[in-house]
């Protein structure tokens, strides 16, 4: 009886360890892409944030099958789900820039309200009409073939 519980306990530890090692491996892959792209950016003197070049390289590596989905799945999900938490210290950093914000806060709010509304309206209408137009043209092509 005793050994049964011990075995269950060991199995649980094993799965936890496997999850941790899985996460760690994915995390190392992600950092690897970041440092590689930092080297590339330094070497070629491009005006591009290295993390974004890393993101592009990572996506192409995934789609080309160089990295497998299982290798990075857990770490990606954990990082994306907790992204808001990583922002907290930066958000607090606002207190060191108090002067700029008290000077410009009306402008900042106006910019946020107006441009966000504008982008939502513009993109929404463009895509809606574009999809409708494409569908119509496809139907017309089909009708022409029927004739």
């Amino acid at each position, binding site marked *: 009886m005793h050994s049964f519980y011990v075995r269950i306990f060991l199995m649980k530890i094993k799965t936890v360890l496997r999850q941790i090692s899985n996460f760690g491996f994915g*995390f190392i892959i992600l950092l690897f*892409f*970041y440092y590689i792209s930092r080297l590339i950016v330094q070497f070629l003197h491009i*005006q*591009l*944030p290295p*993390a*974004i070049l890393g993101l*592009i390289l*990572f996506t192409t590596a*995934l*789609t080309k099958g160089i990295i497998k989905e299982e290798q990075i*799945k857990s770490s*990606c*999900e954990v*990082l994306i789900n*907790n*992204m*808001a*938490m*990583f*922002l*907290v*210290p*930066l*958000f*607090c*950093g*606002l*207190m*060191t*820039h108090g002067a*700029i*914000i008290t000077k*410009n806060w*009306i*402008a*900042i*709010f*106006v*910019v*946020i309200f*107006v*441009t*966000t*509304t*504008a*982008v*939502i*309206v*513009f*993109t*929404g*209408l*463009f*895509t*809606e009409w*574009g*999809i409708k137009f*494409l569908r119509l043209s496809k139907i017309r092509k089909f009708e022409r073939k029927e004739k």
Partner: protein
Amino acid sequence: MNLFGLIISVLYFKIAQKTKKIPLLSKFPPILTAGGALILTLVLFRIDFSTYNESAEYLTFLLIPSTVALGYPVYKNIELLKRNKRIIYAAFVLASVFAVISTYIIAKVCNCNIEVTESMLPKSVTAPIAIEISKNLGGIPELTACVVVLTGVFGAMFGHRILKLIKVKNDIAIGLSIGAASHIIGTSKCVEINKEKQIVTSSVALVIVGILTAFIAPLFLFLIKHFN
């Protein structure tokens, strides 16, 4: 080692996530409530920001791998990009160009100085990417983080209502415009409504628009400086 900053940030964030039952606080995402409470605490107890940031820096560092990790949702939904190719790519490009130009014009109209304008240019991009872009442009990353979060909150609160008003009904169009304008916080609203197509388009849009803005924003600033 001084772990105070790290522990207090995680603790406040976890508490803020649990306050969804309080009616007034539930309207705001946890980052706003946690950040506000933390600033208040630091000011009240007269703790210097640099002592707080000694260990809280590690949390900020994690933004870098999470930027790279954003490639995963794109890979998972790559079918969508292949299906409605032309219109979706055109919408991505137009949305990012339009966002950058309109932000610049309105910031100029409101008489912002160049530093504030530069930090606001990538405002409709998801936070980690926006911070990288803002650093690259010479803006203030802290201000960018705040503006990005506020944009997301605005989009999440009013995005679906605005789209209903102008009678946009296609799920792809809704997801695309919400993802392009108010990034991950807007996407979380799509998750709340639970429409599969909206979630997928919105999560792809927020990444691709982010990447495009990283190219477009410096180019735009360069052109403006060149012609002035």
